[in-house]
């Protein structure tokens, strides 16, 4: 669930930058949210770096059980009823 975490972190980071740039905060509070911002910035980068590319296919097997397996667009699909969409 990196997406939601990343989104929240980015939103918070934007809010922090806005707050800092408004310049209303006393130094100690500025430093506090600045440190939080740096932490968020690092964790955002980490989320981006840690993500890895993956394409899977969700299919239902003969027993009606759903399972994921790796996908390759050139591979012949098992679904005989599928028609080319042009």
């Amino acid at each position: 669930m990196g997406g939601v975490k990343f989104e929240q972190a980015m939103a918070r980071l934007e809010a922090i930058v806005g707050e800092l740039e408004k310049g209303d905060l006393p130094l100690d509070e500025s430093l506090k949210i600045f440190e939080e911002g740096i932490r968020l910035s690092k964790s955002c980068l980490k989320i981006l770096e840690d993500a890895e590319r993956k394409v899977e296919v969700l299919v239902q097997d003969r027993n009606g059980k759903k399972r994921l397996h790796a996908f390759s667009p050139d591979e012949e699909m098992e679904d005989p009823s599928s028609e080319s969409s042009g």
Partner: protein
Amino acid sequence: MSATKQQTLFQPAKPVTVSQLTGLLRTSIESQFSDLWLEGEVSNLRMPGSGHVYCTLKDEFSQIRAVLFRSSALRLKFTLQEGMCIIVRGRLTVYELRGEYQIVMDSIEPKGVGALQLAFEQLKARLSAEGLFDEAKKTPLPPFPQRIGIVTSPTGAAIKDMLSVLYRRWPTLRVIVVPVPVQGEGAAQQIAKAVAWLNEEDLVDVMIVGRGGGSLEDLWSFNEEVLVRAVAASRVPVVSAVGHEIDVTLTDFAADRRAATPSAAAETVVPVLAEVVERLRVLTVRMTQTMGRHCLFEQRRLEAQMGKLTEMRLRIRQEWQRTQQAVDRLKTVTCNRVAASRDVVRDRQRELAGLNPVFVVKRGIAMITFLMQRLERQVMVLSDGRRRRMAAIAAQLGHLSPLAILGRGYSIVSRVRDGVILRSADDVQPDEEILARLSQGQLHCSVKRALPDPLL
């Protein structure tokens, strides 16, 4: 119908039965009108439970009964409505039981618009009334989805385009493809099921449902109610991507976002990673710079305060020196005063010592002794002289005493009434009482008469 056959019916001795005639008519009509196109207005529409549809088709002057059997009715995309102008392909037949001819409709086209178009409009109106397309129901797309669902055909160009765009924009995505047929019988049901799966399994942050371009019939699955409802019900945000820009399906209306093409959908769904990284970098830089400026500002303020403090310290030092000088002056003055006072005190002490009662008394006592001696001497001198003078004075006094005079025979006469000493005979009246004091005793007398002085 040949003329000979008609002539065979014209035999007064051998009339045909109603059934025979009806049969003949039926054969004749069915063979002559086995395939025709008919235009008319629907009226008297009935749809009983059997699934067959009955109505009357009419124009300004005539009407004809019409029937749509269940199998054909199921294939009809749109719904027949009273007053609708339709073009029907069918054949004529005779309903022998009532002797009525009617048209059996195989297919129906609405006049003016295509059947699919009409079906589209009808379903759109119905689902719209239900609120399936309400803007308020639309879920905003997640700004940074990490898991993308794609419901489409696994073999078309559409999937390749989408994957290519997705990975170009955001190389580290997780994509889950649910392969489905995208046209033909049952396709809509399968696509709807795939949408439901992705919701059930909680596998993706957002999904793309679509296919590449095709004819209106090819895209028809995306107008079917089952799929439109599934898309509208999806908790996971759905981006629809059906056909090309000009193709609009009901799935597009139900989706949270419509993309013109599958590629456009992929672009809609994910931002460009490089841009996000850049945004992150810019945010961090802005944050750091702002913080730096703030720190610098505070430092300057601190320095200004320190400067003021130094100034203050200098002033304090100056004041301290001034105070010290004043204190020194005060000390000197006080010391001088004290010294002067000490002298005064010493003098006063000396004076006081002179006034010491002990000395005074001692001096007094000495004086007393001295004076006593003088007094004694004086008393001795005085007492001798005085004794002699006293005797002389006493002798003189003895001569002057009235008592001595009385002794020589004189008396002193006084009035009794007031004690006044008489010096003249005129001082008393006759019979007045007088007292005469003699040298020895007194005489209480009464005046007889006053006489003149005998010497005269």
